[in-house]
């Protein structure tokens, strides 16, 4: 499944523009006036990296967690402007609709835009929070995330390992908070507290078209305070800000989370334009209008500006934490972990 859409991808550590410019050893035009004695051409590497990345394509693994009916599938479809969520047949009663335990369902799609290919995997968690007794409903999810780290670790310590290890690690977990307007529920706190330690969590207020602007602001403030009070570090985590510039940008985002989102896969005519929205008797909610809801901010964060950063943090921090823990655990059983490796290789590895 490949779909062309208007979303333009950009990478945070590469040039902002998505327009391809012709690679030339001479570099950019402005600098090469007259003698090129001062210009080496190192910046051309950016272009080379870019071409390689375009050839390779990108992988993104997003997990969505929240009670049934909060609009998770619709939001994913809206974010990527195509049907990327799992196909749900119309179930006729709660017994069929709500699984007894939390299931993990992954769906992958290859999407393409302006020559950039992405393998997007949406991991759904039906059954979360839907039972009467939801104790430990986060366990299957924790297990799944750790299993992906384990799979990656196993590949990594292999003797003959692949050039590009397939990355099934969960890069980001979007947690859907129901728009009650009061505060976080015990289930929300329990889940986020546990999972913010192993994966990037982006909390969003689901179906936010039921909150007026004041209710939304006070709800967000309450949520931020409660996250702080419970020591829950959601993405972007303060401790991973790289420099002052990063901190400035991320501080602005931290003032706004959780984003209050509304999703839709239907278009309506508004002021002569066709827009994604929800039509009610008292007005039409435009999904991409920032005066109506914060979907655009979420999309920018996840896709346009921070996508690479999210993957970096998953790889260099969450995964490394897991790896260190695992290697420390099996310290006494090094052989079992590394298999029968020659001593030389073992030294290099350590």
């Amino acid at each position: 499944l490949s779909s062309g859409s208007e979303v333009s991808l950009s990478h945070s550590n590469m040039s902002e523009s998505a327009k391809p410019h012709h690679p030339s050893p001479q570099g950019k035009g402005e600098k090469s006036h007259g003698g090129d004695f001062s210009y080496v051409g190192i910046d051309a590497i950016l272009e080379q990296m870019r071409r390689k990345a375009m050839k390779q394509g990108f992988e993104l693994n997003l997990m969505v967690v929240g009670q049934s009916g909060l609009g998770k599938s619709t939001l994913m479809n809206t974010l990527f402007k195509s049907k990327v969520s799992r196909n749900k047949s119309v179930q006729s009663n709660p017994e069929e609709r709500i699984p007894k335990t939390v299931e993990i369902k992954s769906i992958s799609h290859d999407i393409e835009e302006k020559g950039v290919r992405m393998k997007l995997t949406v991991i759904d968690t039906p059954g979360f929070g839907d039972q009467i007794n939801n104790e430990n409903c986060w366990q299957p999810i924790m297990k799944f995330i750790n299993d992906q780290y384990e799979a990656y670790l196993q590949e990594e310590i292999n003797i003959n390992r692949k050039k590009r290890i397939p990355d099934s690690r969960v890069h980001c977990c979007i947690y859907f908070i129901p728009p009650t307007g009061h505060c976080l529920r015990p289930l929300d706190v329990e889940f986020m507290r546990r999972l913010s330690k192993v994966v990037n969590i982006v909390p969003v207020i689901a179906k936010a078209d039921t909150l007026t602007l004041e209710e939304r602001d006070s709800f967000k403030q309450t949520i931020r305070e409660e996250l702080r009070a419970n020591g829950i570090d959601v993405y972007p985590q303060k401790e991973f800000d790289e420099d002052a510039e990063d901190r400035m940008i991320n501080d602005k985002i931290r003032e706004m989370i959780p984003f209050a989102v509304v999703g839709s896969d239907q278009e309506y005519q508004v002021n002569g334009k066709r827009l994604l929205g929800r039509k009610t008797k008292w007005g039409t909610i435009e999904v991409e209008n920032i005066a109506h809801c914060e979907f655009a901010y979420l999309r920018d964060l996840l896709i346009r500006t921070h996508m690479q950063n999210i993957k970096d943090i998953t790889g260099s921090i969450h995964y490394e934490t897991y790896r260190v823990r695992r290697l420390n655990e099996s310290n006494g059983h090094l052989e079992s972990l590394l298999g029968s490796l020659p001593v030389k290789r073992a030294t290099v590895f350590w």
Partner: protein
Amino acid sequence: MDAIMLQEKLVERLLCPRVRTARQKEKQYVGFATLPNQVHRKSVKKGFDFTLMVAGESGMGKSTLVNSLFLTDLYKDRKLLNAEERINQTVEIIKHTVDIEEKGVKLKLTIVDTPGFGDAVNNNECWKPITDYIDQQFEQYFRDESGLNRKNIQDNRVHCCLYFIPPFGHGLRPVDVEFMKALHEKVNIIPLIAKADCLTPNEIKKLKDRIREEIDKFGIKVYQFPECDSDEDEEFKQLDKELKECTPFAVIGSNTVVEARGQRVRGRLYPWGIVEVENQSHCDFVKLRNMLIRSHMHDLKDVTCDVHYENYRAQCIQEMTSKLAQDNRMESPIPILPLSTPDADTEKLIKMKDEELKRMQEMLNKMQQQMHDKDQ
């Protein structure tokens, strides 16, 4: 015909006696046709009472709806718990009472709130405190009714329970089904779709259909509107039919007044438009209010007294008599332990209890006789 006018007609019909036809006027006038008026006057003097329970997860807009329905502010001093405090919260029962007077009619309204319901991570049997409360009220009334001084019996029985179903799901959740099944034989349940302003008209229709289907499927007995008498006119029947097809009501509540279409209305102001609470094309608030207060309040009380309370009472008496029978049977075998001689006080107590039991038996016999007569 205008929906509001139809509603007014409905109200009229229920409060005022019918106009006599010309033919009846010809007969000799005795005068007992004024009885309804006399009852009316007496009730107005005495005043009415009504106990309404609201149940549902926190954040469903229960308090706002109650305030909107009765135009009061019952929850002024409420302090909401934060997430940490909620982790150890159990389901509580909190009563708010308010006296409302309108056009000379007094209503003592009691709202029974159930904070903590469905909020915990483990909600097993979270409805138990609620069923216990309802049973306690029945038990209290039973005791009072069987007692000697029956002049000032306080009726604290719950006449109606509004159950708030979240609009986010695709139908009933397990906790909704279990709650309603635990309570449908103890109280009149009226399920509502809460915060309906997050649904488009299509979504509301689908959700209502789904919920009605599931209520049928699980055998949940929600409050049924009484059937129209066959001699009612067509518009009344039509109105009644519309009301029944509209359940469960999709409601929105608000206590803030906003300006819409040049008028001041109660509503919610969004960047994309204004939701008017009393606009029937926006939500079913008006239908709920009319049904709950203006047309069916009395029927709700009647069903509570005639069906739910009687069920409880019959069950209670049955348990007592079966226990008595058991005790009687046990008297025949020789007691192993020596019987201690009871002192005077205990003797008196035993005698009183015996008399009470005898009275209960008599009442049970009378009730059985009544049922027998009714069947004839």
